[in-house]
C-alpha cells in the first residue's frame, strides 16, 4: 500500500521487525544444522551450536612441566619456562589465571604471582609461563595453574572429509550420493519427454475424449502413491525387473507424469494460436510443429517441471525403499542412509548433521539457482 498517496503506513518498522523475526525463525533450524556439521564431536556435545558463533571462555587446569627435568639455573635461582598451550595442544587468549582452585581469576595475564619466599609464577596472554624460585621450591611436581582463556570460534571441514571417504559402509555418504544421482537424473528426464508429447496432444489436437482425459489427469494428480506400492512391486517382480534402478526409474516416471502433463498442457494451451496455424498452413506436420515450435517455446514450463521432479526424486524415501533398496544395501540412497544413521548413530551429531547437509546441499543449490522457474511452476500447478 506504500504506493498509494497519503497512506504511508505508520506500521513500517513493525512490519520490518515482524519479517525479520519470521525469517530468523525459518532459517534458524537449517542454520543450526549447517553450523553443527562444521564442529567436531567434542564441540557438539560440549555446547549448543549457537554458543560456537561467539568466542568461548573456558577455564582449564594446567601443570607446569616437570621441574626436575626442565629447570634451568639462573644465578642462584632456578627457572622453568614453557607454554601451556603448546604443551597441551590448546589455543586461546588468556584473560585471567590463578594458582588455586578457590581463586581461579586471582591474576590478570602478565601479572607476576608471589608464591612466598621469593617463589614467583607468571603467565602472559599467549600462554607463556615463567616459574622461578630456589632449588627446593622448583622441584617435585610442576606448579598448578588455572587458566581462563577465550578461544575464537573454531570450525573444521573434517566431518565432510570423514563422511565422504569413510571406509565404514554405514557411514559413507559418497556411494549413497552417487546412487541418488543415478536415480534422479533418468527419473527427471524421461517423464519430460513422454509428458511433453501427451501435453501437446491434449492442448492442440482435436479428438473425441480429450476433456475426459484431462479430467483423468487432474484426478490422478492427487492419487496417493501409497496405493501403487504393492501392486507395482508385484508387477515388477512378476516381469523380472525386481528391485533395482530400472524399477525405481519407471516408478518415478509413472508417478511424475500427471503433474508433468498438467503443467505442460496448461502452459502449451497459452501459446499463441497464430504460430501453430501458420505453421500448419505452411505444411508442417504435427511432429514438426511440436519439435520445432512448441518444445523450444515451452522451455520455462519444462524447466519448472524438471525442478519439481528433481527435488521430489532427490528427496524421496518411500519409492526408493520400496522399489530400489534390496537386502544387500548396495543401492541405498542418501535419505535412506540418513534414516539408518539416525538408528545406529543417533547421538553422533557430527556424522548425522554432515550426512544430512550433504543431501540437502544439492537441492538447496538448485533451489536458489532456479527459484524463478520453481515459483512459476507452483503457480501454474496449483489447480486454480
Amino acid at each position, binding site marked *: 500500500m506504500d504506493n498509494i498517496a497519503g497512506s504511508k503506513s505508520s506500521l513500517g518498522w513493525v512490519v520490518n521487525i515482524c519479517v525479520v523475526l519470521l525469517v530468523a525463525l525459518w532459517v534458524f533450524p537449517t542454520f543450526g544444522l549447517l553450523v553443527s556439521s562444521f564442529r567436531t564431536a567434542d564441540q557438539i556435545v560440549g555446547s549448543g551450536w549457537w554458543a560456537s558463533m561467539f568466542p568461548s571462555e573456558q577455564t582449564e587446569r594446567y601443570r607446569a612441566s616437570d621441574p626436575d627435568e626442565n629447570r634451568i639455573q639462573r644465578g642462584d635461582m632456578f627457572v622453568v619456562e614453557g607454554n601451556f598451550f603448546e604443551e597441551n595442544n590448546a589455543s586461546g587468549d588468556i584473560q585471567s589465571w590463578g594458582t588455586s582452585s578457590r581463586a581461579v581469576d586471582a591474576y590478570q595475564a602478565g601479572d607476576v604471582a608471589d608464591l612466598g619466599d621469593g617463589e614467583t609464577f607468571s603467565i602472559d596472554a599467549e600462554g607463556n609461563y615463567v616459574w622461578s624460585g630456589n632449588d627446593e621450591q622448583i622441584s617435585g611436581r610442576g606448579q598448578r595453574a588455572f587458566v581462563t582463556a577465550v578461544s575464537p570460534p573454531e570450525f573444521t571441514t573434517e566431518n565432510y572429509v570423514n563422511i565422504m571417504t569413510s571406509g565404514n559402509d554405514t557411514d559413507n555418504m559418497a556411494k549413497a550420493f552417487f546412487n541418488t544421482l543415478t536415480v534422479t537424473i533418468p527419473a527427471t528426464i524421461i517423464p519430460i519427454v513422454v509428458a511433453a508429447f501427451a501435453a501437446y496432444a491434449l492442448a492442440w489436437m482435436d479428438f473425441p475424449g480429450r476433456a475426459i*482425459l484431462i479430467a483423468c489427469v487432474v484426478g490422478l494428480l492427487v492419487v496417493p502413491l501409497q496405493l501403487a506400492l504393492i501392486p507395482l512391486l508385484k508387477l515388477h517382480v512378476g516381469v523380472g525387473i525386481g528391485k533395482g534402478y530400472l524399477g525405481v526409474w519407471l516408478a518415478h516416471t509413472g508417478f511424475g507424469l500427471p503433474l508433468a502433463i498438467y503443467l505442460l498442457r496448461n502452459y502449451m494451451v497459452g501459446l499463441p494460436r497464430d504460430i501453430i496455424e501458420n505453421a500448419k498452413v505452411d505444411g508442417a506436420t504435427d511432429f514438426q510443429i511440436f519439435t520445432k515450435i512448441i518444445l523450444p517455446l515451452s522451455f520455462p514450463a519444462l524447466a519448472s517441471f524438471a525442478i519439481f521432479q528433481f527435488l521430489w526424486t532427490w528427496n524421496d524415501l518411500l519409492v526408493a525403499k520400496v522399489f530400489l533398496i534390496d537386502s544387500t544395501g548396495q543401492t541405498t540412497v542418501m535419505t535412506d542412509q540418513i534414516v539408518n544413521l539416525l538408528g545406529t548413530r543417533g547421538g553422533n551429531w557430527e556424522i548425522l548433521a554432515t550426512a544430512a547437509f550433504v543431501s540437502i546441499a544439492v537441492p538447496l543449490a538448485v533451489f536458489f539457482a532456479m527459484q524463478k522457474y520453481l515459483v512459476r511452476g507452483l503457480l501454474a500447478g496449483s489447480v486454480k
Partner: protein
Amino acid sequence: MNPALLGLVTILAGVGGCLLYFWGSNQFLDKVIFPATGPQAGRNINRANMVRPWLFLFPAIFALGLYLAYPVFETLRLSFTDRDQGGAFVGLANYNQMVAEPKFWEALRNNLLWLIVVPAASTAFGLLAAQLTDRIKWGSIAKSLIFMPMAISFVGAGVIFKLIYEARPADQSQIGVLNAVWLNFDGGIGSFLFLQAVPALMLLAFGAIVAYVGWIFIRPIAESRQNGGGAGFVPLRLFVGGAALYLVYLSLTSLVGVFTFDYPYGEPQTWLTIPFWNSFLLMVVLIWIQTGFAMVILSAALRGIPEETVEAAIVDGANPFQIFFKIKVPQIMGTIVVVWTTITITVLKVFDIVFAMTNGQWETQVLANYMFDKLFRANDWGVGSAAAIVIMIMVSPILVWNVYNARKEMK
C-alpha cells in the same frame, strides 16, 4: 554393470526410444498406413489426423494406467484378500482386523489432528508472510528464505528438527535449542507469561475463530427459520457447527488445563516421547516446510487484487486490518482454498517425517506409516492395502472437487 553407466544407457535408451517411437510411428502413419498420396490422399490425411493424437498420447496413457490407475483397483482387490491363504477372497476380514487394532485408531486420530493443524497453520503463516513481505523493500529475499525449506527433504528436515528437540542429561550442557530455552523457565513471572498467559490467549483466539466459523455455517439455518426460506447443505452445516462446538469445548477445557498443569521446571525433556504433544512437534516440521509454498501462491494472489478496491477502502477510512480481513482476504478466498486442499493432500500422504523421527512410537503413528509398517514389516498385504484404501477414501473428496473445478474452468 556400473549403475552410473546403466543410468546413462537408460537415459539414452529412454529418451532416444521415446523420440524414435514418436518419429517412427508418425512416419509409419503418414507413409505406410495412410499415405497422403494416390487416389485417396484427402481421406487418408483425415484418417491419419484422427489416429495421430493417440500416437502422441499412447506412452503417457500406458504409463498412467499401469502406474496409477491399475494399482488403485488392484489395491482395492488386495484389501479383500489374504496373502497367507494364497490370495483367497476373505471379504471384509482385513478391514475388521484393522479396525480392531488400537494402532489404527491412533493413526487415524493423529491423521485427523494433522489434517486440522498443518493446513491451517501453514496457510495462516503463509498468508501472514505474504502480506508482510509484499510491503517491504527486501521482501523478495525474505520470501526466498522462508520458501527455502521446500527444497529440503522430509528426512533432512527430520534431522534438523531432531537436533532442536535433542535432550541430554540434566548435568550436561543442552545442545537442543528447545531444552536450552526450556531450562531458562523456572516458574517465575516469565514462565507464567510464556507458558500460561500466551497459550491461554492462543487457545481463546482459536476458540473464538472456530466459534465464528461455526456461526457462519449455522447462521443461514437460523435465518431461514425466521424467514421461512431454505438454507442449502443443511447436514453439512450442522456437521460443521457440531464440530466447531466440540473444538470450542476442547479449547475451553485445555484453557483450564494450562493453568492447573504442573510444569516440570528445570528438567530437560525428551520432547519426542511425550504422548500427544509429540505429534505437534512433528507437525511443526511439515508446517515449516509448507509455509513457503502457501506464501508463494498467496502472495501472487494478493498482487492480483485490483488496486481500486483497496483504494476505495482507504478513502472510506478503513484501517490496515480491516483492509486485510474485509477487502483482501475475501477476494483471494478461492486461492486460500486451493492452498488448503493442496497441503491437505500432502498431509494425508505424510510418511517420511514420522518414519525418520519416531517411526510411529510414543503414539505418533499416522496412516501412511501404519500402512508401510503393515506392508513391509508385518508383510500383511491385506491389512496394508486396506489402510491404503482408507487414505484413498480420505483423498477422494478433494479429487472429485479438483476434477469438478478443472472441468468448470475448461468450459
